[in-house]
């Protein structure tokens, strides 16, 4: 499969899988089958062959067949395909901006306490709730039928 054909098929699937929803843009508008996809395969090279196999089944079916193909995928194939497409999509700055997501940031811990302190005090006032074990030495340590069914 040529790279160009590969990208066309990816775009066909992306139209269906990541069409946008008003707040998030359509994946195909962001050239998802280009550099974003290459970035994903750099991190997950193992998925390239999986996706290629899926696309080979799709080749020649045309855009209108995307839904049918997606419906025919096994759970694991769909997960692989979505990992690739979503992996590429949610790395894009335009998408992150649309979501208000700035990535996993390093923050300085607040120094104003851990939160809900008054409720912790209320918990502290509760009676002890753990069970007191019997004298272990007096109980035989024997295996028994362990699972009540």
């Amino acid at each position: 499969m040529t790279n160009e054909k590969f990208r066309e098929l990816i775009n066909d699937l992306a139209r269906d899988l990541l069409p946008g929803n008003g707040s998030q843009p359509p994946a195909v508008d962001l050239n998802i089958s280009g550099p974003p996809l290459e970035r994903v395969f750099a991190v997950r090279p193992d998925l390239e062959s999986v996706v290629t196999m899926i696309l080979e089944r799709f080749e020649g079916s045309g855009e209108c067949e995307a839904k049918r193909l997606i419906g025919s995928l096994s759970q694991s194939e769909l997960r692989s395909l979505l990992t690739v497409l979503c992996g590429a999509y949610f790395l894009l700055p335009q998408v992150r901006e649309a979501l208000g997501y700035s990535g996993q940031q390093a923050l300085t811990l607040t120094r104003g306490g851990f939160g809900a302190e008054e409720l912790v005090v209320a918990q502290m006032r509760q009676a002890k709730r753990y069970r007191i074990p019997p004298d272990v030495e007096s109980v035989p340590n024997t295996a028994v039928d362990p699972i009540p069914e």
Partner: protein
Amino acid sequence: MESTDLKTEILVVGAGLSGAISSQRLAQAGIGVTCLEQGHWNALEAYPGNKDDFELQVTGSWNANPNIRKGVVDYQILDDSSDIKPLLYNGVGGSTVIFSAHWMRFLPSDFCSYSLDGVGVDWPIGYQDLEAYYLETEFDIGVSGIAGDPAYPDRPAYPMPPLPIQPWGERVAGAHHRLGWHWWPGSNAITSQSYRGRRPCVQRSTCRAGCNEGAKGSVDQSIWPEAIRSGAKLMTGVRVSRLLVDKKGRANGALFVDVEGRTRQIKADVVIIAAHAIGTARLLLKSKSHAWPDGLANSSGQVGRNLMMHPLSRMVGFFDEPMCSWQGHWGQSIYSLEFAETRADNDFVRGSKWNLSPTGGPLTAALYPLDSAQPTGKNLHDRVDEWLGRSALWGMTGEDLPHPDNHLTLDKDQLDADGDGLPRLTYKTTENSKRMLEFMSSRARESLLEAGAYKVAKQTLASEAGWHALGTCRMGDDPLNSVVDRWNRCHDIPNLLIVDGSVFATSSCVNPAATIAALAARAVDHLINHCQEH
């Protein structure tokens, strides 16, 4: 095989939590200790948490499942017969590199489930035997939390105050207060302030693949530097293939494959195995011989049996206010032990520990495996909108009772590099666990709705959740039905110790790391104090 003069007083196999604790204590006591570790030591920069593709990396090369990660130091684990897939890490720090750092002591009742509830077995030791070691190792690792939890016996202050419980934690804490249910700020092996040269947590929420700050108490950061300063030797990239026993039936070293692929030998007076409940049982079974046809130290037939995996359900609550819930420590914000003990009115025995956590970034939101079908198209976008920053997640871990049919064996057909069978897990979730998790899911739903969630979503049984493999070489007083004694010495070979989670007689419902650490510290202190006996 190359002849070798490698010799040590004590050999430790595995540089994870229990191997690190053991090596540190032995070195501090002035005893010669060498630890062999098949993986490598990651630099902090190698961890993916501070990279923008973090979420993608944890689906691949930083996946917790070694069968997916397929690192060069990982060994394949056959898990098609297991409801729960094993998650572990091979390298300095072991699975503490990828753990979420929940640091929980066992409850006192956890040591005597048989005498209290008629299930499982009693441990030969109790909470009081580990209490001092729990405390010492909390300081060694660097644990943050607050004393006073009524679910536990009284205890001294933690080394550090708790981390912020976050907006979602405050909401759920309020809900439990109204419901009259237990909750408590999370105790985590994560620094909440500068601690012994380590930086405080930056709340990046990427704990599950190392910590770039060194704030998480994975033992590559918290224990090994001190162990090495004290004189412990650590060899990395070396894979132990066999344990050796002399003519008198005493452990005397190991064969290992070094970084150049050469098989070598190391001799030792005492051998300590700390290779994870899967790795340790595997190594004992691989080390079978004419004298030990069923595997080393396996006269009881219990090596590999009683595998416990801690079945886990999850409940996600969706809130209508932004809470930035992709940030925060991935360790627990709060926990609840409301349903941790057996209750007469339940149709199951024992109980569950709940931990509330943040919910990750957009890729996690898009692909999180819930009971409902994987969304695609507009539904996928909508799920991300609803989830990202506006959700919180209860994980409900059920106590897993030991059953001999849940076990690890070596496969007859699929072989490893040494020509031995690959480890195969056979594990079925019991009816008791299924009933328990169903009950917990219903209660967690109540909890989140009371906290203000406008809807919830459920994962009944998480398959990619086998962080807590336990029990494959269980502890007991009776050599006929246990592998190690109360001091972690193999009944069959007293100078062979097992110090990892494989010795758990029962699993509790809480996270096992604190108890693994305390048991290892106790075993090694006993070894140090009774050297002549070994």
